[in-house]
Structure formats: C-alpha cells, structure tokens
C-alpha cells in the first residue's frame, strides 16, 4: 500500500512537472504578445481564464466549509481534515490569483488597487476579500500546524529541520498553554471567517449579478448560487482528498452526506434559474439559456455537467453512501466536471449580441460572439496554473504535517 502511494505520488509529481513544462509555452506566449495570444474578443471578453478562476474560487470553499462546521457548529468529526483543508484553500487561492492575473491587460498596474481603489466596483471588493481570505487561511494553517512543525524541527534524523525551524520562527518549545492558545486562535479565526467567507463568495457572484444588461447574470439569485457552488465543489474536493489520504472513512461518509445535500440544493437553484429565465420570456435571456442547453457546446452542459457531474454523483451518493470509494468517486466527478459549470456561467451571456444589428456590422474575429473557443495558449496557461497548484499541493502534503496535525484535533473542538 505504502509503495503504491509512493508510486502514485511520483506519477503525480511527474505529471505536474510535465504540465508545467508544456504549459510554459502558453505563459511565454502571453508574456510576449499579451492578450493578442488569446482567442478572446471584445464581446466575449471574459473567457476560459475567468471560468478557471471561478473553478479555483469554488475549490477554496472546502476549507471554509470544514472550519465552519468544525469550529463554529462544533461538528467534531470534521476536525481531522482541518489542516489539510486549510492548506488546500491556500493553494487554490494562490492559483485563483495567478490565473486572473494572466487575464489582466496590464498586470503590472495591479498596484492601482492600492492607489486608486473604487469602492463602487465589485472587483475592488473581490480583491479586498481575496486578500482577507489569504490572511485568514495563512494564519489558520499556521496555528493548526505549529505544534507539529515545532516537533518536526526537533526530530532527530528528519530532513529539513532548518526549514521547519524557519517556519516556526525559531520557537523550540510547545507547551499546553501554547496548545490552548493556538486552538483559541483557530476558533476565533474561524468565527471571523464565517462572515468574510460568505461575503467573499457572494461578492464574486455580485461581480456578475449587478450587471443590468446581462439578463442571465443579473439578479439576487446569482450570489447565492455562487456561495452554494463554491461550497459544493470545494467540499467535494476535500471529501475526495480525505479519502485519498485515508484519514477516516467515517468522515468520508459524513462529508458525502453534506455534498449530496449541497448538490441537490445547487440543482434546484439551477433548475429555478432555467425556469425563471424561460418563463420571463426576455429574448436575450432565452437565447443565452438556449446556448447552454442546445448551442454548439450542448454536450458540455448535458454530458459533463448534468450526466457526469450531477446524475452519476447523485446516484453514487444516494445509493452507495456507505461505500467511501463510491463517495470519493462521486466527489471526484463533481470536482473535475465543475469547470463545465463555470464555463456555462461565464460565456453564454456574453455570447448574445446586446444590440440588434451588431453582428452584421464591422466584421472582425474579436467582434464576434460565436467564434470564441479557448485557443491553445489559453489551455496551456490553464494547464500551467493547474500543474503549479498540484505540485504545490503534493509538496505540501509530503513535507508539511497536514495529516498528522489533524489527528486528535476533535478533542480540542
């Protein structure tokens, strides 16, 4: 078993490195040619990278879900995955920031967020709350891992002891007083993270929801859907990882129940979105919905999202809920197909011309809505970010006490 795990670890590291090497070509293209290297246009101006951004945004919600359940609602069983999920959120947040940075036309002007922020813009709030989440989860991760980092820094024969000493700022002793203090800190941070996290996911939804000219996005339901989808995809990731790291099969079972509930809620919300959209009868909205369901990429919706990402997981979570392998498979399917949900969030509304006759005037490929499909550069950059994230996660899971720190954690909750 141990050999198998080591083998899998090496394969995943090799895949990540290969992804980084191959994806570098896309990164170089963007560095050289900017957005000219992409297939984006002025009408479909947010494309694959924004969808991938939203995908990572969802994955960050895993830790949020776990810490809230554990430290706010005192569900002790989830405490074992606290450190792992806090680290996962850090990696996902970093990937999220990276991919959206590639999407900026002038990345090196990002300092403008500090100099001339506009508080009427949802993107400003997105930046503020992304940073708040980063600070929260760096601190949470640190206080959850500190005891084991100190132990590892003193452990005879363990390699990298200097590195662990560096991470603990040279602290050598860890008393019961420290332990109590760290748990109090984690509890406080989790309490703070509840409103901040909800606003963070809501704000990301509000970026889309406030746009009056975007019938598919505009509405109070959008931020709510963002919160639910984030919890669903992030929670599914944590459940899958809990199974992979063999932390606790019982825990996989409980998490599976949470995921099943979230999946049902999400599907109801999605159904409502379609129902209300079609019944409203606004042409632009119906056109967008038709693009999702019957457009050239109908299979993204029906095959990847509905069949692979919803029906099969729902079946597995309902009929085989006691089987951790089935639950893990269900969660794996939800996570990997969630990019389809994100693509269908971002692109279809933009794919409808907002003025009659716009499609027939001033022809240029970047002024068309029907010609956007992510090009090779966009895929390669996405691959690069995914690979970097995976490598960071693998390295962290190997050289940080993410699993051991969760053991016995329940008694402190």
């Amino acid at each position, binding site marked *: 078993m141990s050999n198998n795990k080591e083998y899998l670890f090496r394969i995943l590291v090799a895949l990540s490195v290969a992804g980084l090497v191959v994806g570098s070509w896309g990164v170089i293209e963007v560095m050289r*040619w*900017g*957005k*000219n290297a*992409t297939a*984006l*246009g*002025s*009408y479909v*101006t*947010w494309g694959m990278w924004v969808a991938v951004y939203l995908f990572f945004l969802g994955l960050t919600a895993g830790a949020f879900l776990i810490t809230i359940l554990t430290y706010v609602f005192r569900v002790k069983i989830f405490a074992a995955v606290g450190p792992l999920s806090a680290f996962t959120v850090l990696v996902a947040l970093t990937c999220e920031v990276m991919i959206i940075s590639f*999407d*900026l*036309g*002038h*990345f090196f*002007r*990002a300092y*403008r*967020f500090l*100099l*001339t*922020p*506009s508080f*009427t*813009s*949802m*993107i*400003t709030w997105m*930046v503020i709350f992304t940073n708040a989440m980063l600070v929260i989860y760096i601190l949470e991760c640190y206080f959850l891992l500190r005891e084991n980092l100190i132990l590892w820094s003193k452990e005879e024969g363990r390699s990298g002891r200097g590195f662990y000493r560096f991470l603990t700022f040279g602290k050598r002793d860890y008393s019961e007083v420290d332990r109590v203090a760290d748990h109090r800190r984690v509890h406080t941070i989790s309490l703070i993270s509840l409103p901040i996290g909800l606003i963070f996911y809501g704000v990301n939804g509000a*970026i889309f929801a*406030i*746009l*009056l*000219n*975007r019938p598919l996005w505009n509405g109070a339901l959008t931020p709510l859907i963002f919160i639910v989808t984030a919890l669903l995809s992030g929670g599914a990731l944590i459940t899958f990882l809990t199974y992979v790291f063999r932390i606790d099969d019982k825990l996989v079972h409980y998490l599976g129940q949470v995921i099943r509930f979230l999946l049902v809620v999400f599907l109801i919300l999605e159904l409502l979105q379609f129902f209300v959209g079609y019944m409203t009868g606004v042409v632009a909205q119906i056109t967008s919905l038709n693009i999702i369901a019957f457009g050239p990429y109908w299979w993204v919706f029906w095959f990847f999202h509905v069949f692979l990402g919803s029906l099969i997981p729902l079946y597995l979570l309902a009929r085989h809920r006691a089987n951790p392998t089935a639950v893990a498979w269900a969660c794996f399917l939800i996570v990997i197909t969630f990019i389809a949900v994100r693509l269908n969030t971002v692109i279809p509304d*933009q794919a409808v*011309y*907002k*003025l*009659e*006759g*716009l499609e*027939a*005037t*001033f022809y*240029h*490929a*970047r*002024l068309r809505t029907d010609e956007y499909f992510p090009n090779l550069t966009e895929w390669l950059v996405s691959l690069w970010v995914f690979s970097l994230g995976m490598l960071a996660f693998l390295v962290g899971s190997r050289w940080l006490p993410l699993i051991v720190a969760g053991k016995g954690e329940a008694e402190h909750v």
Partner: protein
Amino acid sequence: MSVNLPAEDPLIRMQRDLKRAKAKNLKDIKWGMVIDIAKCVGCHACTIGCVAENKLPPGVVYRVVLEEETGTYPSVGRRFVPRPCVHCQNPPCVKVCPVKATYKNEQGVVVVDYNRCIGCRYCLVACPYAARTSDFGEWYTDKTPEVPGKLVSRKAASGYEIRPAAEYGKKWPDRGQGSPIGNARKCHFCLHRLAVGMLPACVTTCVGRATFFGDRTDPESLVYEQIGSPRVYRLKEELGTQPSVYYLK
C-alpha cells in the same frame, strides 16, 4: 429646389456653436450628440472617419453603424443606427472600474485614463451598448509581405501604423510600447479635436449631415434645439443610463 433645404450647412452652425461653447468655462459645457436616423444613409463614413482619426487597430472600433430591417414584405424598409459611445450621464462602466481609470469628465464625456487602466475589461462587460472594445495589440500590417523596393512593404506601411493618434490631446508612445494596447478603448467625442476648435471626426465626415454635436446646455445650439424634437429618443432608455447621445426617429 425644396424650400426645406437649410439656409446653411449644419456644420457651419455647429462650428459657431462650438466656438460659443469654448468661450464658456469648461465645467459649464455638457457635450451632446444628436443622430437623425432618417438622414443616415448607412455609408459608414463616420466609422471610417473615426478609425482614421484615432488610428484604431484591427478589432477596435468606436462607432459602428447598425443596420435594422423593418416591416414585412412587401412593406419593408431599412434604417441605419450609428452607435458611438453614448456617454451615459449615469454610466455603468464608471461604477464597475476597480481603479477609477474610466470616469466622466467635467463636460460629461466618459473617458479612459490609458495609463491607469489595468485591462480587466469589466467595463466592456458592463456597457449595455457594447460601445467599448479592448485593444488586443493587433496590427493591420501583420503578415504584410516584405519585398524592399518592389512593394510598399510592411516596414513602410507600419511606419504609419506605429505613430500614435493624439487621443485625449496627449502624445502617446509609438504603438507596441504599452498602452493603449491592453486597455479598454472607446469613443471620447474626439476631445483632442474639440480642444482645438474642431468638431468630432464622425460629425464632419457624415455625408448625410445626420450627426449633430454641441453643448446640450446651450439654448442657442443646434443640438439643444433638436433634443427638444418630438422625434427624439435614446437607446435603452429603460436602463436609466441617461445617454448624452440622442436619436431622431
């Protein structure tokens, strides 16, 4: 000769209006445009005039002419609706810009600070009129053959393309060296021309004299007069954006 012919070319009157406006304090001017779609012949001269004036690269356009078909056969018609940036008095694009790079200036013109724009394109997504385009950094002279002495080749042609326009009355670096590549771009009512007493390029190139421009707060101006017409309407008025561009049916 019809008695309805104007006594003078509207351009002459608009030029007088412009001169009078420029004598005012800048903050007391509110620029406005009126487009008489009954007069527009759909020649696209305004689009081309704008592209030439602002040296717009491929894929960037400030003013398009939309074509609409009306009626049912055999009673059918076509009308042309030129669409510049409509310079909303309540602009959705300004509110969403996270770094205050786009704003409404004193004269009610929505402008973009090229040196501040981070290129997030939120304003493009927020504009209900699709009036903004992103400059992706394309060149007309890309893939132009290079045969020195035989053709006006890429090097020679790009000499024109590389020189920037005087948008916003500023001297910009040669094209390819930063902004406006990577920025959101849009119509700015040719502020650089107004500054030197010239009407916007789309107004002077309109062969049907269908586009009128001036200070919409000046009761003596042509645009003020036309805004009072019972034929007047604005695009997507229901959104509450209050455009400064008016149309005459």
